[in-house]
């Protein structure tokens, strides 16, 4: 069954200038997102993994035009998001929402839980008075909070409960796509599972599409249908979950998968231990961006950045040697 793509991204780039250049020294650029293309089908969850600084959060923000892309196109339901005016973009925001990592920072601590969840409704003038109150109560119920929580302020909630409030706020306008940027990373293990289950339930009930950004490979494996791996601003491998986890092709994916500690003391580890750090996204390595740390490096890895090549219909990889 071929499904239409809800979101399609082609050649997306986001560069940030660092410091101030002058006449004799051009501005240096952080290549946070550099030529990223992918699509997300309706109702699916695309996991996005990578280490800190690989650009995965910037990608999420750029998709919603919370930072303006430097180049490339974003298509949402056939509309080119990158061309919309400010006003058109504002109304499109009803369709695309975001959940942040830190539930302590993402809620205005001067507003009650009720007014936080009801805020999107008042911004878009969707419901008024009694209807709005009912809608807010309904949303709070959906994320497992009770009516008695409505009048409380964020500091009176635990991290997990705050994340539930943030989820209720994102749901308020019946969005189609939710970008979840490390939504469970700041939570305790026992709470993580609650929030992951909640996200899955809501996806089933409201037919949501997720872009799930995380550094935790196990969480991504659990929740995603397909997974994309990012390294230094580029997608190095994208494939259906089972395929990616059982037979990764890109050497970086392989190293990443074996690096995560397994919660099983009897497991035999054959770990690919990477040497060195992630290179600076300002002064990028020439050739393949991974070659300096690559365990399967060859001479021709230095000849330009490899293209993202499809191995089969759903599995693409940015490496010359597979």
């Amino acid at each position, binding site marked *: 069954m071929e499904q239409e793509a809800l979101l399609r991204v082609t050649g997306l780039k986001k560069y940030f200038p660092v410091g101030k250049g002058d006449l004799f020294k051009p501005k240096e650029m952080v290549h946070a997102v550099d030529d990223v293309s992918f699509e997300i089908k309706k109702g699916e969850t695309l996991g996005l993994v990578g280490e800190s600084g690989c650009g995965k959060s910037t990608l999420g923000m750029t998709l919603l035009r919370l930072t303006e892309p430097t180049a490339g196109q974003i298509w949402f339901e056939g509309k080119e998001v990158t061309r919309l005016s400010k006003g058109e973009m504002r109304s499109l925001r009803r369709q695309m929402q975001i959940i942040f990592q830190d539930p302590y920072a993402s809620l205005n601590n001067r507003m009650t839980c009720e007014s936080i969840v009801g805020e999107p409704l008042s911004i878009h003038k969707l419901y008024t008075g009694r209807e709005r109150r009912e809608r807010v109560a309904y949303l709070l119920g959906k994320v497992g909070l009770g009516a008695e929580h409505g009048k409380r302020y964020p500091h009176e909630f635990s*991290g997990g409960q705050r994340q539930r409030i943030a989820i209720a706020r994102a749901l308020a306008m019946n969005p189609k796509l939710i970008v979840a940027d490390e939504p469970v990373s700041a939570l*305790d*293990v*026992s709470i993580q599972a*609650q929030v992951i289950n909640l996200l899955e339930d809501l996806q089933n009930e409201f037919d949501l599409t997720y872009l799930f950004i995380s550094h935790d490979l196990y969480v991504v494996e659990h929740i995603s249908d397909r997974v994309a791996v990012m390294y230094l601003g580029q997608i190095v491998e994208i494939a259906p979950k089972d395929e990616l986890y059982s037979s990764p092709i890109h050497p970086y994916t392989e190293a990443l998968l074996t690096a995560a500690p*397994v919660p099983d003391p009897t497991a035999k580890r054959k770990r690919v231990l990477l040497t060195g750090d*992630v290179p600076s996204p300002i002064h990028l390595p020439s050739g393949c961006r991974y070659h300096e740390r690559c365990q399967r490096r060859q001479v021709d890895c230095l000849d330009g950045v490899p293209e993202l090549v499809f191995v089969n219909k759903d599995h693409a990889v940015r490496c010359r040697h597979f």
Partner: protein
Amino acid sequence: MEKLLEIVGLKTHFFLDNGVVPAIDGLDFWIGRGETVGVVGESGSGKSVTALSIMGVVPNPPGKTVEGEILFEGSDLLAYDAEQMRRIRGKEIAMILQDPMTSLNPVFTIGNQIAEVFMLHGGKSHPEAIEGAIEMLQVVGIPNPEKRVHEYPHQLSGGMRQRVMIAMALSCTPKLLIADEPTTALDVTIQAQTLALMASLKDRYKMAIMLITHNLGIVAEMCQRVVVMYAGKMMEEAEVESLFANPMHPYTRGLLRSLPGVDRKERRHQRLVAIPGIVPNLLNLPKGCRFSTRCEEHIGICKEEEPPLFARDRHRVRCWLMKD
């Protein structure tokens, strides 16, 4: 195994305006010579306060160790005066913290910071101490130690800084290393490097490690024995294989079940089994067992009386279900 550190009935409380927080509320466990013991728990479980109590650096006020003994090689650290404690810290027991950026001083070169330890505890002169620092940087696998020794913390990456912290901690070859979430701020690939380094240094220096973490994967990989803490109390203690294969406390079971990817071999998409509810407020603990409010297996007595530790199959478990 010979006991290097033994904690008996430790209680560290924080006296706040709105009540007393029993951050550690009666803790008993020990660490053998050269052994790695994992201390796992969620936020508020008291695992970090345990480390601070052992080092004698609980912020006072509001915190204070009110009861118990911390026996290090047989003598009670709590009876030591400030000067005696100073000689223990860094030399016999060293500590590394989660965030290497805030635990290093930004205005001194890393060489000077490592050298300081040598000068404080080894009585070495400055040039000798710098030599020592270079050697230590080499031990922890920092390339170009002669050059790096003159660099400042901000010039290093997160993983490198954590290596510098490890170098500082190990420079006096302590008998016990307390590592409080040493890799939580690091990326997976850097975490793997750092853990591998710690494991190899442990063998080289024959030291014991108390590894505080919330990551059960790290525990499985690094530790011989595990202490599971919840809301200030130890809930279960066992050898690592046995704990993962046969968790006896409902909380331990819940934690393991709630991990995604544990039943990876089955590759079935199933719901995670979450522990319901939230961690209780330490100011307002439930009556009886402190896990009873979230426990799905609780019986009548659980909400009445706090369970003692029961010994069973080489586990120690604080649960009434283990009574007979």
